[in-house]
């Protein structure tokens, strides 16, 4: 996602000037996405160029408020209506790291998995603590952002569990048996 839609969504609530936009953006993401004021003004000038927002006369205090245009509203509505594709997100460094670890000699893959799992669970503990503190009705937006991070971290742990189980099942044995042992008849009868 770009900052563009974040600012459009905030302006949909009413007119705001740059500093207010920055503060509201950070509030609605619980501070997980800090913005500098330069990013806000660069984005605002692009939005104005594309006629998605328009600037209003300056206040006495020298702040220039912005308002969303009809085209801006339409753009925002389209963004809300379109699902986000997985492909739009950056490549997953962890998946690539594990894939490489598997084919690199001398790398302790189960060790990497456990280290990552501990780190991710630690992060989950932090998110959960933050969530415990954000229990008021006013915190709902922030809580949803937090929960998204919680569910994503949980998915990562599940994937790591899966990697570990797959590794245990498919890893080549250190000393392969010279000959496959014949399967005892009784064993094969088990399924009948």
């Amino acid at each position, binding site marked *: 996602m770009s900052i563009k839609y974040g600012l459009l969504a905030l302006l949909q609530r009413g007119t705001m000037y740059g500093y207010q936009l920055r503060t509201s953006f950070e509030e609605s993401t619980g501070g997980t996405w800090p913005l500098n004021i330069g990013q806000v003004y660069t984005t605002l000038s692009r939005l104005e160029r594309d006629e998605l927002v328009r600037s209003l006369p300056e206040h006495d205090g020298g702040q220039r408020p912005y308002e969303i245009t009809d085209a801006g509203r339409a753009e925002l509505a389209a963004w809300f209506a379109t699902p986000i594709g997985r492909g739009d997100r950056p490549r997953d460094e962890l998946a690539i790291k594990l894939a490489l670890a598997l084919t690199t000699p001398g790398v302790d893959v189960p060790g990497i998995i456990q*280290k990552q*799992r*501990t780190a991710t669970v630690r992060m*989950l503990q932090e998110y959960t603590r933050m969530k415990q503190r954000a229990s008021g009705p006013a915190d709902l937006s922030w809580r949803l952002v937090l929960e998204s991070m*919680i*569910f994503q971290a949980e998915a990562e742990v599940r994937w790591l*569990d899966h990697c570990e189980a797959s590794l245990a099942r498919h890893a080549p044995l250190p000393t392969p048996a010279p000959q496959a042992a014949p399967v005892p008849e009784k064993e094969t009868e088990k399924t009948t």
Partner: protein
Amino acid sequence: MSVLELRDVHRTHGHGEATVHAVRGVSLTVRPGELIAVMGPSGSGKSTLLNLAGGLDSPTRGEVAVEGTVLGGLGRKALAALRRRRIGYVFQDLNLLPSLTAAENISLPLELDGAGVRRARRAALTSLAEVELEGYAQRFPDEMSGGQQQRVAIARALVGERRLILADEPTGALDSTTGEAVLRLLRAKVDAGAAGVLVTHEARHAAWADRVVFLRDGVVVDTSGPLAEPEQLLDGAAS
């Protein structure tokens, strides 16, 4: 003082070649106000560990102590009494007795322990209020939702003077928000001074704990504690 202490605990099943080492050399201390989660795949020894902690099973080697009392040194009667008085269990499949009301389910262990009916009833009502089920004393389990039943199970686990709560996948079949309410409650009970051990295979649930212990083949392979908060760091410096 720790509420629960496991010292180099081992548990093996079977003999000779068929020996299974369910738990191998686990040491763990749980203090008041602390919730520990135990995570691991099926067969990693999670439930065995919980049974050992609760005196439902005995270690082949090592010691388990609850509030300073070593369980191995107790006779069967004394162990049963300690389990009733000091330890509360919450299981996935609830284990509420279907023919008893919510209040009766909670007061039963106290009555079995010799408490008078009225005293046990009063304790049950207090316990129900603590899990926000004041109006449900007369309801039977099948007249309550899964989440409400699990709250009754938690109320029962912590009725009277019990300070150790052992939970095995307590959110089992509950949906995510109901399951979370159960964890929130468990967390609140622990924050109020109880000690808890939560066995789960879900990281999202384990994250409610202060420490997460990772178990593989009966061995603790790693432990994750949350980052210390500034005030805790200061506490550490002062002591």
